[in-house]
């Protein structure tokens, strides 16, 4: 979002495209939840993103209140409300800028979700939060994997959700073939890196870095059962 706003058009579009590629699922699920069938939802999703990326609609987003998530949802609602646009969606090809989205996986994920009695908007927020976390953790794991430390990540990852009782340090040291002090340091670094990545990712989606904390709180509230 920051990149998308501050820089020239092609980079802005690319940044926006990256965001769209990451967060398309909550939107697809939202459209599905609004009652559209699988095929129609696919077309609509594609079409929505295409339009988003073609028009320079980002210019209309308020600088200070820039929450990409809210903007996306509002734009989608507007899009769905416009019947003409919906009809047109069937005719477009779409997907040129975004690349193909894995709708099969998306539909699979959607159908595996348990029934909710929350509003589609609330569900959108929840899914957004989940997608965000998935993205951050997957990227983090990939980072560790690249450094040859994939197994370390897997063993220690539960500290990221605050679980200090994964095992006593002495045991972990034995398992990972290193010293206790090294384990402590690794854990510390893992947490720190996770936090960095999380905040970075969120900063992408809010206009103002000062809003990151609030966004985390909002997402936390959205996940409250």
């Amino acid at each position, binding site marked *: 979002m920051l990149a998308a706003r501050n820089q020239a058009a092609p980079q802005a579009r690319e940044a926006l495209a990256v965001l769209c590629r990451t967060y398309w699922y909550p939107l697809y699920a939202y459209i599905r939840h609004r009652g559209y069938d699988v095929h129609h939802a696919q077309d609509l999703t594609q079409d929505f993103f295409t339009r988003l990326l073609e028009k320079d609609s980002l210019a209309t987003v308020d600088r200070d209140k820039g929450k990409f998530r809210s903007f996306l949802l509002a734009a989608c609602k507007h899009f769905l409300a416009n019947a003409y646009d919906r009809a047109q969606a069937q005719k477009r090809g779409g997907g040129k800028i975004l690349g193909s989205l894995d709708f099969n996986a998306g539909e699979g994920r959607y159908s595996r979700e348990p029934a909710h009695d929350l509003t589609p908007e609330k569900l959108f927020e929840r899914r957004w939060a989940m997608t965000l976390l998935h993205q951050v*953790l997957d990227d983090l794991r990939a980072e560790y994997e690249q450094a040859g430390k994939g197994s370390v990540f897997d063993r220690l990852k539960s500290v990221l959700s605050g679980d200090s009782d994964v095992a006593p340090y002495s045991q972990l040291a034995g398992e990972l073939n290193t010293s206790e002090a090294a384990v402590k340091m690794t854990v510390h670094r893992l947490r720190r890196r996770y936090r960095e990545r999380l905040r970075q990712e969120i900063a992408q989606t809010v206009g103002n870095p000062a809003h990151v904390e609030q966004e985390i709180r909002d997402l936390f509230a959205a996940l409250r059962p």
Partner: protein
Amino acid sequence: MSEVRACPTCGTELPADAPQGLCPQCLLAQGLKSSKGTEAAEAGQPPTTGFRRPFRPPTPAELAHHFPQLEVLDLLGQGGMGAVYKARQPGLDRIVALKILPPEAAEEPGFAERFGREARALARLSHPNIVAVYDFGQNDGLYYLLMEYVDGLNLRQLLQSGQLKPPQTLLIVPQVCEALQYAHDEGIVHRDIKPENILLDKKGRVKIADFGLAKLLGQAPLDLRLTGTRQVMGTPHYMAPEQMDRPLEVDHRADLYSLGVVLYEMLTGQLPLGRFVPPSQKVQVDVRLDEVVLRALEREPEQRYQRASEIKTDVESVQHAEPISEGPPALLLGRTPELEARVVEILRHDKIAAIRFFREATGAGLAAAKEAVEWIGRRRSERSGSFQSARNADKNSLSKDGLAAARQTLLAPALGLMLIGALNCTGLAVLLLSTIRLLSGGQFTVSNLGAQEAILLSMDGLLGLAILWGAWKMVRLKSLGLAQLGCVLALLPLSPCWFLGLPVGIWGLILLMRPEVRKHFPTSS
């Protein structure tokens, strides 16, 4: 394949698509914690800290070195707030609890000062239901509190044992309320009310622990503290919404919210999550407790209970279930008619709001207010015959005043029908009179009637009688069918009174179609 797993940190169910199998809420929470105080810290507000290393408490032997004046006996437990030991003061020959704060906490700037302030405030709290603070200080960088030792268990342990029954709950909660009210009056908010902090001694006395420590240790809204033992864990579930959204604006009402959560958990064994089911629908408890719980769990502090003592009153009134009397409740004697009128107004929309208003106006307890409001509602509906208040009153009074109201409504058309019936009958009456005269040898006073007219008049008369009978059945609510028949007959163009009968008949039929009227007629078997 789909086993339900719970997050070891916060205890909530892990969703099926949990990222890397980790709890999303905890993940976000961990993301909120910043490194030592470098992130925005409001003046005077302790910066959000995380205890990044698990706190390994020293052994009793190690501690003895720090506290020569005590006999440190056992480690009782540990949590994010530190570790607690059982110790003995040899001089006084009494058992005390020694609480050690995590050393990381002390590393913050200004901690010593805050610690002193908080400890002094806590020491001021002298209440049978609050764990007393005997002493506090700092020994070689190790901050400690010397407190009352409570020989018993905490509410969490009791909940886990499954031994807690509603009557016990109703005995525990008032004591908690007393403690909270006392502390709030002293200007101290606990901020971390949860079952782990509610202790019960062997005599069944409630003791609240860790008062004010949450603030002292710089509790961030989402500070999930680490623990060695799995039981004591700061879950966000007991926190009031404003503690998470606007932590700077938290006041004593946050404690009341937490108490609501605890109460719900005590009654049902579960946390009130999302759209939760009222306790009376989950377990066998008094319905009035639902209102207590719901009000304590209001998202907006303004809508919540404002005082712990109010919760206590309400819970106790449920405990000593008072029978509802028939006459005007004592509370209403001497009250102004304006109060009653206002109650009636609110009662039209929302009974619970009316009860609340009455309580605010008179300071009455929950049960008494409910009784008073119901009584007012009954009185009003009997007077005005309106169905609005009848609809709002509870089931028993509904059938009673609904009946009166139904009768009231039907009275007018019934009278109309009777009039029509009577008019129709006059023709018959004239005929009869004339017949009698004729038979007794007189003459018609009215011009001679031919046979045809005589028959017509008799038919009219019969019609009139039928209408009269129907009207009678209607106003007495004896028979729906006959009442309807009466109306139908009235509106048929069979008599000269038809112009009157038509509107009345239609009116009557419409009224008889209303469900609130119909239901008072006996159903035909």
